[in-house]
């Protein structure tokens, strides 16, 4: 859906004649006065903002704060892309939505908010997710793109299309207590051009390969603090305004001398316990466009084309390991038990001793667990196992792998261990790892995965369980 919600400008085509020398209206003079008098701004810079078209992809934790400042600054045309609806768990960080708009498409909710803030811009709602099929059509109509999305496949797609269509890209990301922001492909440079460089990098120049699918953290699973992601979104708007006000989104004209902008990645981390201090900003000097880059390097025109992307080449989902799905069938049938069976066959049989190991993070564990469960976060289990392996102390040190609360008396070394996690994936790997370390005593001790994790526990056993 492409719904133009204000027709005072012609906002849909990519090549309109822009009147860059009109007088400002009374309302514009008043509304933008405080930013226009900042040194380096002035009327010309404000007119550039008024004539600019910005596409914000993602109306979430980054997109909401970014959009507020983009709209406030008077960017002439603002497009927003997102296919999700507002949920209650979004609201601690997605400040452009509201409790009364839960269930509404995020794009419409955010635009409602932005119109309140500034009714002058033209807002364009794209209530759909960006995909290889629609990406070029969405991006081609704008001068500058903000990547406010939440997954690697989409990040590579957006960067590739921005290279192909010669658009500057302001990319940010955030999870848990850290965030990053970088300006890419700015000034926009033709694909494959290396001579006469250095030229600005694209996302692939910086991050050649995505992390393996099981190492990718989403905000839903790993958590995110509102101000951390908010800060990154605000910084995106700041970069966008700077680029547009100084015309950096337009490639230099022939013979035009321009001081090159050093590609810089701003890294923010926010942790009370860090040795680096309670918060850290680091501005990292990045490398320019890489000769070997798949998308913008030497010979990239042969590898990456608009037609190719539409046909499914490259395959972004596959590249980011999403096609594979979760690891299945690693464990034998007798090594798995459903939560319901666990209650019936294990918990209610009072005489049999057993240990329940919960491998969720301690924050998840703090809300509740299976009765008697002992917490050993999955990451800790893996690093402890690696440590033991390194020291060559497989036995008897292997018992130290488990928390001391699980210690059993002599002669009870065969009490079974039941492993549970959040959704039933880590627990399977944990069972494997414990067996590999020899904790199953060559098969004498049962180590069993509670299938489906605490999510299945809530569904099958205890609907009131506080599953997060």
């Amino acid at each position, binding site marked *: 859906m492409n719904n133009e919600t204000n027709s005072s400008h012609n906002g849909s085509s990519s090549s309109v004649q822009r009147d860059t020398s009109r007088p400002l209206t009374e309302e514009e003079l008043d509304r933008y006065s405080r930013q226009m008098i900042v040194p380096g701004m002035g009327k010309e810079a404000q007119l550039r903002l008024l004539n600019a078209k910005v596409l914000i992809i*993602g109306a*979430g*934790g*980054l*997109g909401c704060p970014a959009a507020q400042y983009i709209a406030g600054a008077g960017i002439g045309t603002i497009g927003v892309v997102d296919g999700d609806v507002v949920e209650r768990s979004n609201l601690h960080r997605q400040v452009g939505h509201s409790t009364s708009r839960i269930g509404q498409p995020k794009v419409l909710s955010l635009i409602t908010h932005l119109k309140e803030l500034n009714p002058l811009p033209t807002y364009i709602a794209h209530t759909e997710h960006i995909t290889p099929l629609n990406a070029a059509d969405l991006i081609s109509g704008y001068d500058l793109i903000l990547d*406010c*999305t*939440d*997954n*690697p496949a989409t*990040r590579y797609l957006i960067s590739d299309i921005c290279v192909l269509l010669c658009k500057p890209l302001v990319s*940010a*990301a*955030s*999870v*848990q207590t*850290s*965030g*990053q922001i970088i300006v890419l492909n700015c000034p926009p440079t033709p694909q494959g051009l290396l001579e006469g460089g250095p030229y600005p990098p694209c996302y692939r120049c*910086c*991050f*050649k*390969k*995505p*992390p*393996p699918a*099981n*190492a*990718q*953290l*989403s*905000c839903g699973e*790993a958590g*995110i603090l509102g101000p951390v*992601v908010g800060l*990154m*979104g605000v910084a995106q708007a700041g970069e966008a305004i700077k680029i547009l006000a100084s015309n950096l989104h337009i490639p230099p004209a022939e013979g035009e001398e321009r001081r090159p902008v050093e590609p810089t990645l701003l*890294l923010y981390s926010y*942790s009370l*316990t*860090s*040795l*680096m*201090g*309670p*918060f*850290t900003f*680091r*501005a*990292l*000097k*990045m*490398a320019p466009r890489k000769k070997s880059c798949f998308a913008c390097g030497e010979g990239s025109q042969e590898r990456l084309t608009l037609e190719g992307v539409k046909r499914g080449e490259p395959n972004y989902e596959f590249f980011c390991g999403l096609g594979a799905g979760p690891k299945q069938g690693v464990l034998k049938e007798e090594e798995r038990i459903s939560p319901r069976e666990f209650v019936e066959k294990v918990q209610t049989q009072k005489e049999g001793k057993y240990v329940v190991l919960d491998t969720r993070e301690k924050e998840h564990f703090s809300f509740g667990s299976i009765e008697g469960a002992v917490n050993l976060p999955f*990451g*800790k289990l*893996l*690093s402890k196992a*690696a440590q033991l*392996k*390194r020291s060559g102390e497989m036995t008897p040190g292997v018992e130290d792998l488990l928390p001391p609360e699980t210690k059993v008396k002599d002669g009870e070394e065969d009490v079974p261990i039941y492993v549970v996690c959040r959704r039933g994936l880590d627990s399977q790997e944990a069972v494997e790892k414990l067996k590999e370390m020899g904790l199953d005593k060559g098969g004498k001790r049962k180590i069993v995965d509670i299938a489906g994790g605490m999510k299945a526990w809530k569904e099958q056993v205890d609907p009131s369980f506080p599953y997060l």
Partner: protein
Amino acid sequence: MSAPRPPKGHFNILYFASASSHTGKDMEALPAPLPLRKLFDILEDRYRGIQETVLDHCLVTINLSYVDMPSSEDEDGEENAVVIQEGDEVAIIPPVSSG
């Protein structure tokens, strides 16, 4: 905010995002000098599995500047090879993709 100075004969290594969760640390000091191409081997030795889950796709900076990671077999250009020096600050920065 700056990190504490590394002890004599050491450099600081900072771990961000998933590098920090994998190592259970924000930073530590490692012995210097160290050829850059040996860095990943040393980390893999300390933190089994970190190469595949973190290092293979992260970016590395020395003193706030991006460096290209040479492969550990790469013996060419020995004389031009980057060496991490005492007092340097190395950072391991995995991509973050959520938002």
